[in-house]
């Protein structure tokens, strides 16, 4: 987004106030309204779509595959695979690769092996495919919310053969039409923009453009988790962050996390 000098200074000054005056009138801890859709792709095990009020849209599909546990232990395969496609971005750009590596590490650390385990020898592998159709602000929060909804609404085929296949070599067999809902806890990621001594959650494109810096903060099951790192929200005017603002931002996310999860769960 291109802002004139006057617009930029007006936005910056109003966001610097205490409390900050945001261009869309939100409070510090208020998100933009979202619109959700789940389970619209029949060929995927789980799917979700979130549309933001500014037209940003993200679609996530969860597909599964049965793999041998031995291949994960030997490092040939991973339990979770993440792929991101952002319209208008090359898929080998550093922006995309950064997003992929952040999400891959967070999901493979916090999606438990037991929740995907099938038998003693086999397990499900999840493919999380993310498609961002349009985005105007930093897409990580949008992506993580959509993936949360998709993973929470994933249905995997029901196993009918025995769980213990250590003694007798047998391939897992599945029920013809019954599915079991995947029961997992999913981490989410928040974006906080820093403007002078203020910190605001879920910055929109204007706020991002004038912000001094940005922090992404992970949240899982009531606790703050890594990644806690700063991100570039605009090209150019980035300044350093005061340490106490990092602590304050973390406190803000801590106080918000549970209510965000509750409203996402209500969307199912």
């Amino acid at each position, binding site marked *: 987004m291109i802002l004139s000098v006057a617009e930029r200074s007006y936005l910056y000054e109003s966001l610097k106030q205490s409390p900050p005056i945001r261009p869309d009138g939100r409070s510090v801890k208020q998100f933009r309204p979202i619109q959700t859709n789940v389970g619209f*792709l*029949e*060929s*995927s095990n789980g799917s979700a779509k979130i549309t933001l*009020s*500014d*037209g*940003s*849209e993200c*679609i996530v*599909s969860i*597909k599964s*595959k049965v793999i041998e546990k031995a291949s994960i232990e030997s490092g040939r395969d991973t339990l979770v695979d993440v*792929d991101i*496609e952002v*319209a*208008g971005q090359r*898929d080998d750009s550093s922006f995309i690769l950064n997003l992929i590596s952040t999400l891959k590490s967070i999901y493979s650390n916090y999606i438990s092996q037991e929740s995907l385990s099938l038998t003693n020898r086999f397990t499900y592998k999840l*493919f999380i*495919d993310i*498609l961002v*159709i*349009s985005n*105007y602000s930093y897409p990580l929060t949008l992506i993580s919310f959509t993936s949360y909804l998709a993973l929470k609404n994933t249905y995997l085929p029901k196993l009918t053969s025995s769980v213990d296949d250590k003694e007798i070599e047998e391939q897992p067999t599945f029920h013809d039409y019954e599915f079991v809902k995947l029961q997992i806890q999913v981490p989410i990621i928040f974006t906080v923009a820093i403007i002078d001594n203020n910190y605001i959650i879920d910055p929109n494109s204007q706020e991002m453009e004038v912000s001094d810096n940005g922090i992404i903060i992970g949240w899982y099951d009531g606790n703050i988790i890594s990644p806690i790192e700063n991100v570039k929200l605009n090209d150019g005017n980035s300044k350093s962050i005061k340490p106490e603002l990092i602590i304050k931002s973390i406190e803000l996310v801590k106080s918000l996390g549970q209510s965000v999860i509750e409203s996402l769960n209500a969307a199912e």
Partner: protein
Amino acid sequence: MSRFEIYSPEGLRVDGRRWNELRRFECRINTHPDSSDGSSYVEQGNSKVICIVNGPMEPSSKAEMSTSKATLKISLNVTPFSSIDRKKRSKNERRIQEIVTSLKRTFEQSIIVNKYPRTTISITLHVLALDGGLLSSITNAITLALIDAGIAMYDYISSVSAGFYNNTPLLDLNQLEESDVSFLTIGVVGKSEKLALLLLENKIPLDQLESVLAIAIAGGHRIRDLMDKEVRRHGDLRLSKLANK
């Protein structure tokens, strides 16, 4: 030989249709009003396509600019989750590139390009689910999105595939049929019998080609009507909103 009975002696196909029946066709226009100039969503059977049109706008580089007409930029994204088995496809894959080229040629003829000199029209396609008829569902989605964007066209381009199996022409093939039947995809110009697009990748006996084309054109006209209905429905909606103001 396929495991499936493509066309039973009783005259039924794998999904229970008769030879001249289309799959369920549903479309919506103006699905992404905030993020694009024109957008559409098309479901043809189990195939689902989103099309986003931006433009006519200033080209990002002068090299792409033409002083006499608009340049078309088409990007086709077949998502890895679109097929039953997950498969990652690169945008530079030959098959994808071929489809993009034929679409470009089709729409450069169908859009009144000389009305928009020195501009680019960017068309982005996302295939969310694929069950045969890739080219036809994409073509229909582009037509609708261009109409939504208000870009001048000569007429609708409605597209449908048709195949030839065991001396019977079959209309609008799904994935299973496509893998066993030789087929062609056409794009019909409006209510005429003119074709803006014809793609035949396998063999169809020359003396049978006419019957296959005839049924495909009839199917194309039907799809044109369905698209026209949606465009008019949306037009009425816009008009009623204007009238209420």
